[in-house]
Each structure stands twice: as structure tokens, then as C-alpha cells.
């Protein structure tokens, strides 16, 4: 079972790193940065190795470890890789070193605490993805808020305290309702031998009455919807992004937002299939509304970070649409879109951070014609914009195309049965690609083109990207185009888990004489 320990090592590497960090003297920030970079790069290497070792098409968990943690309740330290969390784990590990590298120059105060928090955040995020035990999932799910709260709160902008409190309390409220559902499940779920169990596998065998399912799903769905964020529950995102330091924004956009969608994929719909069926129209509507609402708001912002924040709302609307289509294409597209958004939004935030470091302003009106002043920066910015728009050959297109195709493919048979609503929604979602191009190209035109203008703080010595920054962005762009051109390998590895997800959610519909 040696490889199982590999996964444990992957999970606990940041904790070990954090412990070592304590030993380093506060006066030597370069050592601290070096160590955390080392730890996260090692983690990336391990994650890549695990990804390669992961066999496609094999159902059930791989690299599984199950050890009793709180015996009396039947809670186990149970982690494992399956198709659903494989890509997200790889994404988290991939973004880790980039975030730290991106923060070399921007974080100068309390460097040790910052890197400690980044490592702790990495640990909790990976824990949430890997957890196969409901209680363990919840512990990691809420523990994730603490480092993020501190990162935004300590190194953020002027209104950081308002932003970080709003972020924490917003997400915590969702989690409280989820906790109520988890507590209820705590004593209703029985494993084979009758003792109470939290294993998600046991949860799947659960037969609950529909009204109970609806209540529980509401608890879970609210918490996940806040995290996604879906439209009515999204107002924490712009504030959190605007006030967070670059590294915070990248992690927030890159990984934290995927928690919500992963939650739906792993726990939300499969646990309560009947309730999921009932909720599908609502969630599908909210998903499409998120796409259009996010695109609309991104168009009228003047703060660059807010534009990208609202674009995240729009992009994750696609993911939700894919998940709710319960169509193999749609869900696979959703998984790819999650990874793609992580890379694209992460990259864009890194770039905003780079320009903020140089010119200390995020106001779009203060900028212009950067293509003349910073050519290399502009090329990378254009490439990332293309991915954000979902131009073919980029990962954005792969995600959006499969999601829209899946949504349409799922909606068409219903249309033939006379229910036109899903088809209307799927078509409205396609409109999203136009709106997406609208706000992104407006941002590019105002930032890169037109007469060269830089906020007075920029000063004369405006130098283009240095090697470190270029290598970060090059890694991201390479990944984006790799997923854009050769997504098949990723799709094969996640297919089996997605099929199981579909079987768990769809049988309910088959009984009603579905397609």
C-alpha cells in the first residue's frame, strides 16, 4: 500500500513545510520564500506523479487510506483519489508554486506568517478535495476559511477588514446550514455493520424520503452555492477579490471557487438524487442567470480586479450548467471548465498583481496603450483574455463547448417531449459567449490599446516582465493551450467517476420515463 502513503504525503507536505517554517528566523524572508517554494514544487511533482499513476476507467477510489479518527462516531480519516477530485488536486498543486512565486516581491510584511498561511490553506484545500468522509470533508471545508480570512485581512487593501469579515461570515452562514444537514446525517447513516458511518460511499446507498432529501439538499446546496458563487449569493466575491493581495486572489479564484462546484458534484446531487431532480430547473436558471448577470456586471466595472471577479461568476455559471445537465458531455465539460477557470482567472489575477506592483492602481481609466509600453505583458494578457473568452484551441473553449453541447444535448429530448424551458436556458447560455467577449475585449481595449497612459505612480522606470514573472505566465499559458488542444487524457481519467455520478443522479429520472 505504499502509494496510498504517497497521497498522505501529498496532503501533509504543506504541514511538514509549515513546521519547518517555524524554525526559520523571521529576519530571513528569502529563506522562508525558498522553503515554501520548495515544498509546493515538491507537492506539484508528487501530484503529477499521482496523476500519471492514476488508472483511467477504474471505478472506486485509488491511493485510498482509511483510518478510524473518532471511533465512537464512526468517523474515519478517509482520503482517496477518484475521477472527480483528480484534476482539482492537480490544479491546486499546480497553482501552489505559481502563487508563491507571484508573491515574492509583493509580500514584504510578516513573510513567515504569510507563507505559513499559504501552506495551511494548501493543506486544507487538498484535504477538502481528497476527503471521502463527510465529517473530514466538513472539517477541511470550514478550516479553509481561517487562512483565507487572515491572508485577505492582513495583507489586503484599504477596506480589507470589511471584505474579509464579509467573506468569512457569508461562507460561514452557508456552512452552518450544511453543518445542520451533516449533523442530521451523522446518526441516520449506518454502515453495513449498523454502526453510524460518515463514509460518503455509505451515504450514497442512503434511501431518504423526498421531503427529507429536499431539506438536506437545501442545506448543502446553499453552502455550495455561496462558494460557487451563484448569483444571488455572490456579493462577497468582488469585495474579497479587490481587497485580497495578489496571492490571495489567485488562490481564491483558482481553487476556492471550485469548492462549491466540487461540493455539488461530490455531495450535493449524488446524495439526494430525487431532490436534485426537483431542484434542477431552479439551479439551471440560476446558472444561466449567473452567466448573464456576471457578464453584465463585468462590463460596467472600472476596477480591473472586479471585472475579473465578476467574470469568474460568469464562468462558474457554465460549470453549474454543465453539472445540472446530468449529461456525460456536460459534466465532463464542467470538470474541464473548473480547471480551465482556475488557470485563466488565476493567471489574470497574477497579471493584475504584476501591473499593480508597478503602478499601484487598479483603476482601468488610469491605464492605456500598455501594448506599447509593456509588449511582453500585453502578449500574455491577450493570450489569457482569449482563454477567458473561450476561443478555440484554449482550455476555455474546451470547457464551454462541452458544457453547452451537453446542456443542449440534455435539453433537446425534453424539448421533443414539449418542455421548452431547458432548451431556452441552454440557448440563452450560448448567448453568454458573446457577452463574455464584450467585457473582456472592452478590458483589453481600455488597458492595452489606445494612447499610452500610465497612472502617475507608475513613474518612468516601468519595466516589462522579468524572468520570474514570465516563467509563471508561460507555465499557465502552456497548461491552458495543452488542455485546449489535447484534453483527451484528462477526460479519460475523469470519465469513470462522471459516469457513476450520472448513474446515481439519473436513475430517478429513468423511472419517470426519461430519455
Amino acid at each position, binding site marked *: 500500500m505504499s502509494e496510498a502513503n504517497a497521497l498522505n504525503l501529498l496532503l501533509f507536505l504543506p504541514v511538514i513545510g509549515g513546521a519547518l517554517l517555524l524554525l526559520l528566523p523571521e529576519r530571513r524572508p528569502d529563506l522562508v520564500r525558498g522553503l515554501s517554494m520548495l515544498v509546493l514544487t515538491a507537492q506539484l511533482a508528487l501530484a503529477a506523479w499521482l496523476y500519471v499513476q492514476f488508472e483511467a476507467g477504474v471505478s472506486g477510489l485509488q491511493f485510498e487510506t482509511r483510518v478510524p479518527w473518532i471511533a465512537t462516531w464512526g468517523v474515519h480519516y478517509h482520503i482517496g483519489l477518484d475521477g472527480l477530485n483528480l484534476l482539482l488536486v492537480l490544479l491546486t498543486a499546480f497553482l501552489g508554486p505559481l502563487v508563491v512565486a507571484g508573491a515574492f516581491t509583493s509580500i514584504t510584511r510578516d513573510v513567515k506568517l504569510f507563507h505559513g498561511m499559504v501552506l495551511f490553506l494548501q493543506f486544507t484545500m487538498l484535504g477538502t478535495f481528497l476527503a471521502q468522509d463527510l465529517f473530514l470533508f466538513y472539517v477541511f471545508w470550514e478550516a479553509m476559511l481561517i487562512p483565507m480570512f487572515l491572508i485577505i485581512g492582513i495583507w489586503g487593501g484599504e477596506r480589507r477588514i470589511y471584505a474579509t469579515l*464579509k467573506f468569512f461570515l*457569508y461562507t460561514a452562514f452557508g456552512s452552518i446550514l450544511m453543518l445542520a444537514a451533516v449533523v442530521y446525517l451523522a446518526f441516520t447513516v449506518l454502515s453495513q455493520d449498523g454502526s453510524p458511518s460518515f463514509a460518503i460511499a455509505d451515504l450514497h446507498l442512503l434511501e431518504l424520503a423526498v421531503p427529507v432529501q429536499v431539506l438536506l439538499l437545501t442545506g448543502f446546496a446553499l453552502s455550495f452555492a455561496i462558494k460557487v458563487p451563484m448569483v*444571488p*449569493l455572490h*456579493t462577497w466575491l*468582488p469585495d474579497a477579490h479587490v481587497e485580497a493581495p495578489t496571492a490571495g486572489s489567485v488562490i481564491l479564484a483558482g481553487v476556492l471557487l471550485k469548492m462549491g462546484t466540487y461540493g455539488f458534484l461530490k455531495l450535493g446531487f449524488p446524495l439526494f438524487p430525487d431532490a436534485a431532480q426537483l431542484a434542477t430547473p431552479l439551479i439551471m436558471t440560476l446558472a444561466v442567470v449567473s452567466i448573464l*448577470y456576471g457578464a*453584465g*456586471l463585468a*462590463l*460596467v466595472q472600472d476596477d480591473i480586479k472586479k471585472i475579473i471577479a465578476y467574470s469568474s461568476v460568469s464562468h462558474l455559471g457554465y460549470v453549474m450548467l454543465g453539472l445540472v445537465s446530468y449529461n*456525460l*458531455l456536460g459534466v*465532463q465539460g464542467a470538470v474541464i471548465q473548473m480547471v480551465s477557470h482556475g488557470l485563466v482567472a488565476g493567471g489574470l489575477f497574477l497579471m493584475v498583481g504584476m501591473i499593480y506592483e508597478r503602478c499601484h492602481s487598479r483603476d482601468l481609466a488610469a491605464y492605456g*496603450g500598455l*501594448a*506599447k509600453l509593456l509588449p511582453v505583458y500585453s502578449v500574455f494578457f491577450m493570450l489569457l483574455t*482569449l482563454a477567458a473568452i473561450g*476561443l*478555440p*484551441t484554449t482550455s476555455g*473553449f*474546451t470547457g464551454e*463547448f*462541452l458544457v*453547452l*453541447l451537453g446542456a*443542449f*444535448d440534455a435539453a*433537446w429530448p425534453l424539448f421533443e417531449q414539449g418542455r421548452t424551458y431547458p432548451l431556452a436556458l*441552454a*440557448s440563452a447560455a*450560448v*448567448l453568454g*459567449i*458573446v*457577452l463574455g*467577449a*464584450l467585457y473582456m*475585449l*472592452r478590458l483589453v*481595449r481600455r488597458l*492595452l*490599446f*489606445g*494612447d*499610452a497612459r500610465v497612472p502617475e505612480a507608475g513613474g518612468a522606470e516601468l519595466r516589462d516582465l522579468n524572468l520570474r514573472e514570465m516563467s509563471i505566465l508561460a507555465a499557465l499559458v502552456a497548461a491552458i493551450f495543452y488542455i485546449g*488542444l*489535447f*484534453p*483527451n487524457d484528462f*477526460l*479519460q481519467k475523469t*470519465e469513470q467517476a462522471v*459516469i457513476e455520478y450520472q448513474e446515481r443522479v439519473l436513475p430517478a429520472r429513468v423511472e419517470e420515463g426519461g430519455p
Partner: protein
Amino acid sequence: MTAMNGMLTLLVLLPLAGFILNGVLGRRLGPVFVNGVGVGLPILAFLTALWAWRTLEAGGGVPIIETVFTWAVIGEHVFEVAFYLDRLSAVMALIVTGVGALIHIYSIGYMRGDEGYARYFAYLNLFLFFMLLLVLGRSLLVLFVGWEGVGLASYLLIGFWFQDVTKARAGRKAFITNRVGDAGFLLGMFLIFTTVGTLEMDRINEAFAGGLIPLGVATAVGILLFIGATGKSAQIPLHVWLPDAMAGPTPVSALIHAATMVTAGVYLVARMSGVYLEAPAASTLIAAIGVLTAFLAATIALVQTDIKKVLAYSTISQLGFMFLALGVGAYGVAVFHLFTHAFFKAALFLGAGSVIHALNGEQDIRRMGGLARRIPWTFGTFAVATAAIAGLPPLAGFFSKDAILWFALASGQGGAAWLWALGSLTALLTALYMFRLLWLVFLGRSRMEPETERHVHESPVTMTAVLVVLAFFSVIAGWFALPHYLEPLLPVPALRFDSALLHWAQIGFAVVLALLGLAAAAWLYQDGGRRGDEAWERFQRLHRMLAGKYFVDELYERTLQRPWRWLSDRIFLRLGDRVLIDGSLHGLAGLARWSAAVFARVQSGSLHWYAWMTLFGLVAVLIWVWRHV
């Protein structure tokens, strides 16, 4: 289905290599390297296209299929990236690479000294790569990749001189309008995928031909794909971006916005002829929109004063003719007109470029005139091309446009008298506005400012040579019987009534119209357009309408952009985010703070009050417990 090893892939990858080399190394290694790569590779691509065409003909026209790699396998759906060469795509490839190569050569002269020289050639090569991808792709997915790719290339090239905000904004307008079309295209693709199960175009045509697709679905697919085509080929209602696209360098306008990209829509409809044969309703719609666009664009072209705008509206009009042909089922004829149009429109645009180059940047035809003697070569080629487009025999335009008008009248699949009538009227207007251009620019008195007039000079040989070649092709292009050549692939529609007499009468009538246009133009615009202006005095309101391009841009601004911006700002942002959601949250937070203050005040510090609360609590509890005993 002979699969030659990598010939098509090589053809597609050559321009891509050009883009990468110029993009990365171009700036450092100077213009010579850029010319070598930027022009050399397209020429090589043209030769490869010729070689591919020859192998195709050697194989008896059997389509060549080359699978490159599997993009994705999801469940039983397989998405493959494969190239498909049959006679139609061979013709298109030859046009793209041929005209493309010529325009690259032309660009050497036109763009000399521009500081974005390497970047320009990189983008042009990128465009060729995506266009070839579009033309040679087997599945609609690969076609769509090329489709959006050329959209990107046109965005980059229109906004090439990005310092000028209006040019950048024109680029964005082009991309957004194309994207609207692409949305329709996507829906069409999804519908096909859901009903047919595959995206490979040849299998789709077979499925539709097999008749197992219901009429409703066929019509829907037809219309949706046509929406994509209108976006790309600038038909009403998505034609607004093409005139603004003139902001790009002139060779770009020639290559992308005349010869190749805008014809992608025509290629798509021609390629998916199987669908449209099954969807008569969609075909009539295409015919109607085609002829309508042709007519309206022609009317606008009459009053334009910018040389490139005239040609832009002329392109829209000619594309209208092509869609008219497609609408009545004459797919081969449409491609034939596309073929001839590529040459003479490229010649016209490059000619205009040469004129602008000569007058270093002047584009307003009211400040030109009398250039014939000063730039003879340009005048000669421009005249030939003008004659061709006007449809004077024996030039190219005459053959293709006449065939279109004939089928518009006589085609069994939707041919109608009013289509022919409007088409003929447009042909007249075409001749009128083209010869007006010829007269105002080259003949009559010189209306140039003194200092521009002083150093008017003929363009360098690299430019004029290309003009001559294109002019030559504008002459002979008509003689290739392309519709017959594409016969097996694109069926010629059965005729409603087969009378040779009517056919000849129609041809004669078309020639008369062309000559009439020539004469009217000559008469009106002889001495600097004085009589023309007087003519327009009487139709003051009509003139304002035409000059304002039917105010379509303003219509879109008021009905689409402003409401969306208002909705996003007022409703979503101010009302939705700030008032409803955040407002209620701050309200809750305020409520919590207020109640905290209340609870704190209850702790008043006085022992009496504490004791009183204890009594109150005790009494309340006792009452509750003893309430129903």
C-alpha cells in the same frame, strides 16, 4: 479515400510556422527575415495546395481524408481532428493560398517602414493558418476552430495600429458581431450533433440526404448555420462590422475582408448543401436576405466618399449575390462567383491601396481625380477590375453574375421573378457606383491638395506586379467552367423552364444594364461629379438616408448596447448588488449591532434591575409551567 501521409497537415502548418517564427523572432531579425518567412511560407503553402489539388485530380476527385489526432472521446462520442480535401475545399484552398500569397507580396511594399512589420506578417500568416483550418476541416468542430480563429486574426489586424482608439474599437466591433453569428452557428452545431450524432460534415450531408431528419430540424439547422454565415459574411443584419473593418491596413482589407474570410459563410452553406436541399424554407430565406443585402449595400455604395468604404459595401453587395445563388440552390455558381470575386475585388482593393499609398494616406475620393496619367499601372488594373465587377463581357464578373441572375430567375428550387428583377437592378447599380469610383478617382480634373499632388508617385513594382497578375486573373477567371467542375459535389438545380432563348435574352439584358451603368456614371461624374451632386440635390432626404447607412449602427446602439449597459449598471449592479443583496445584508448586520446595544443597555449595573429581572424570569417560568393545571 486515399490518405496521403501528412500533405494536408503540412499545408495547414506552414502558415502556423510563419506565425510562430515571425511572432517570436521577427522583431529581432529585421525585415529581410520577416519577408523570407512571412512571404515565403504562404507561397510554399500555395505550391503544396497545388500539389494536393493535383493528387486529388490524379485520384479521380476521390476526397482525401487525413486524421491528425483524436481531440476527445466522451462516452461513445469521438471528436477527431481530421482534414478533408475534395474539389470544393481544393478550390477554396487554392484561392486562399493563391490570393493570400499575392497579397503577402503586395504587403512588402505597402507596409515598408511600419514599426509593427514583423507583427503584421505574423498576424497575416496566423490568418492563413486558421482559414486553411476552416477550409480543410472535416468536422464542423475543426471548421468552427478555424471560424473563430479567423475572427481573432481579423480582430488583431483591424486593430493593427492599436494606438488609434477608433481602429481598436472597430476591431472589437468586428469580433463581437462575428461572435453573435458564431452563437447561432454553435446552436446549429449542437442541433446537428443531437439529431445526427456526429459533427463530420460528409456524414451529416449523407444523413440529411438519407431523409431520416425531420423537416423542422433541417430548417432549424439551416437557419442557425445561416445566422453564423451572416455574421462572418456580413449579410444583413450582421453586416455593420465590415465597413468599420476598413480601419485595418488595405492589404488586410483585400485578403480578409474581400477575398477569403468573408466568403467563409458562402463556403459553409455550399459545404452543407445536403442540409439546405432538405430545407427549402431556409433556402428561400437565404435567397431573400442575399438579394436584399445586395441591393441595400449597392445603394449605400453609391453615396460613399471613402474609396475603401465604397469597395467594402461593394463586397457586401457581391456576397449578397452569392447568397442569392445559394438560396436558389445554385451552389456551384455561388462558388464560381466567389472564385471570380476573389480576384477582381482583391485587385480593386489593392488598387485602392496603391492609390492611397500614392497620395500618402488620402482616402476621400472628393479630393482625388485625374490620377490616370500619374499612376498608369494602377489605373489600368483598376479599370480592368472595375469592368469585371460591372459584368462587362468577356471579363470574369460577367460569367459568374450572369449565371447567378439566370438561376435566380429559372432555378427549380426557389427561383423567382422578383429575385431576378432586384438582382438585375443591383447589377445596374453595381456598374453605376463602380464606374463612378473610376471616374472620380482616375479621370476628370485633379481635385487634390497642391502638396499631395506634388509628390504623387506610382507604387513600387512589388505592388504593381501583383495588381497586374490579379487583373489578368480577373479577365480569365470567368472562362473556367467551375460550376460544371464542382458538378458531382454541388448539384446544379433543375430549371423551371428550359428555353435557350430566354437564357440568351437574359444575358443580353444583363450586358445592356452594365453598359447603361457605365454611361450613366460617365455622364454624371465626368467633371468631378458636379452633375452627380446636382442630381442628389433633388433627393435630399434619400441622400441623407443612404449616407447614414440606413442608421443601422445607431439602431443597434439604441436597441442593444445601451439597454444592455443600462440593465447591467442600473439593475444588476446598483439595484441588484448594492441595494437588494448588500443592502439587506448590511440591514441584518445593523439589526445585530442594534440588538447588541439593547442587550448591553439591559445590563444597567443596578442591583435592583438585576433582581427585578430575576423575579420576572422566575414568575414567567412558573406561569408557563403552571399555566394549564
